[in-house]
């Protein structure tokens, strides 16, 4: 196997005395689609938020593309990373949020061109061309000049996906992308994510409660519990024949909830 694009090495995350990630070892291969499932408070969203550098780590090392994410190499040692290093590392990752977090005062088009222009230095025309291509991909071409507030939740989340893709990340993080949506709007968002998974070489890390969807698109499913991976395997193994009692409990609880 080639070097993983994401590697967690004994990563610890603590809030005071509460341990969210407990010496987590976890890795993702280039192009792999990994779904993280687990009860709330199991640390699954924290994994994504730490990767996006929205939250710091308390211990351990994370490698993204072979480079330490939260550290810089200095004379062979690892020192805490400065802002410049974090900025450089962040360009490899894109994130889709549960609450969309679109910029409400900007049009859909502007949401997609803001960062490519100000961060990547694209010209207005280049950024617009890229945005229009992505709007086509998520099926929102005719909504380019609307404001997010004029769109449905499902449409907003599709804009959120397009906005993250506009930065051409190698890794896409989806943090419960459909949890804030009305049930009838979930499908359109999942369709877009499925297309991405099937047609692109993106590495995808997805936290979701949509078990059937996870089963369809994932190469691997990780069941998180109490800050650790309790069980991982192919979707068929995890959903079809889980080894751990805790995994079975969780899955049956989720199914009954449906």
């Amino acid at each position: 196997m080639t070097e993983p694009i994401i590697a967690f090495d004994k990563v610890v995350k603590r809030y005071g005395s509460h341990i969210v990630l407990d010496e987590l070892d976890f890795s993702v291969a280039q192009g792999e689609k990994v779904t993280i499932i687990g009860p709330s408070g199991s640390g699954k969203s924290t994994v994504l938020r730490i990767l996006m550098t929205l939250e710091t780590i308390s211990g351990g090392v994370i490698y993204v593309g072979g480079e330490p994410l939260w550290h810089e190499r200095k004379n062979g040692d690892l020192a805490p990373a400065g802002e410049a290093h974090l900025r450089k590392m962040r360009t490899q990752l894109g994130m889709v949020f549960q609450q969309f977090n679109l910029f409400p005062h900007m049009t859909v088009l502007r949401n997609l061109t803001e960062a490519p222009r100000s961060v990547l230095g694209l010209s207005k025309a280049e950024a617009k061309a890229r945005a229009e291509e992505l709007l086509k991909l998520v099926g929102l071409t005719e909504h380019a000049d609307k404001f997010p507030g004029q769109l449905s939740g499902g449409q907003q989340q599709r804009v959120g996906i397009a906005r993250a893709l506009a930065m051409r990340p190698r890794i896409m993080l989806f943090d419960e992308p459909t949890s804030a949506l009305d049930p009838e709007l979930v499908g359109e968002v999942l369709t877009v994510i499925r297309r991405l998974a099937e047609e692109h070489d993106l590495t995808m890390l997805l936290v979701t409660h949509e078990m059937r969807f996870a089963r369809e698109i994932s190469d691997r499913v990780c069941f998180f519990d109490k800050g650790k991976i309790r069980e991982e395997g192919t979707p068929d193994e995890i959903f079809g024949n889980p080894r751990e009692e805790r995994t079975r409990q969780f899955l049956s609880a989720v199914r009954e909830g449906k």
Partner: protein
Amino acid sequence: MLFGYSWDTSHGEWAFALSILPMLLRGLVVTIEASIVGFFVAMVIGLALAALKGARSRIVAWPAAFVTEFIRDTPLLVQLFFLYYVLPDYGIILPAFLTGALALGIQYSAYTSEVYRAGIEAVEPGQHEAAKALDITPRRTFTHIVLPQAVPRVIPALGNYLVSIMKDVPVLSVVTVLEMLNVAKIIGDQTFDYLVPLSMVGALYLILTLVASAIVRIVDVSLPKRGLSLR
């Protein structure tokens, strides 16, 4: 005689009132000018203080918070005297009008900075997270994402301070600024009739503040909210 106009004290109260109106209006213009300059200063310095107070570095945030507290907890008159009588000792000599408008602006910047802060803090944390995930610099996040959402929401609160500033302009009379109240007082001193000029000042002030409030409301309504939900 004042501003080249003379008052008519021999044809009754109404003729007197009419004769001093042009003088009071000259004073009113000064009052409006001082308010506008003061408000502008308060908007700019207030925003700067708000930005500094929100800085992550305590070396920046703490002094800004101290300055705000200091400005807010000392009387406008003390600050005005300080600027007017102390600064010239250090070679900074400003005209009375400018000194007064500056003092007003600085005093009110402490209040406007709190208004800005409230607006800035009301912007959802998710906005900062999204900006960070897109690698947008903190500075650009502040100017292009946070402020455009924060400022439209605080326009009414800022506007209220414009009206307050107008009502504090008479304080400038103590440093010889010929704003409306000072003009009225001079007229009273000269004619021994205070009732008419002071009543007129009251009436003109009422009109002024009502008009200012209306303008603030019009600005607030007509400002493009562009997708912002206003609470």
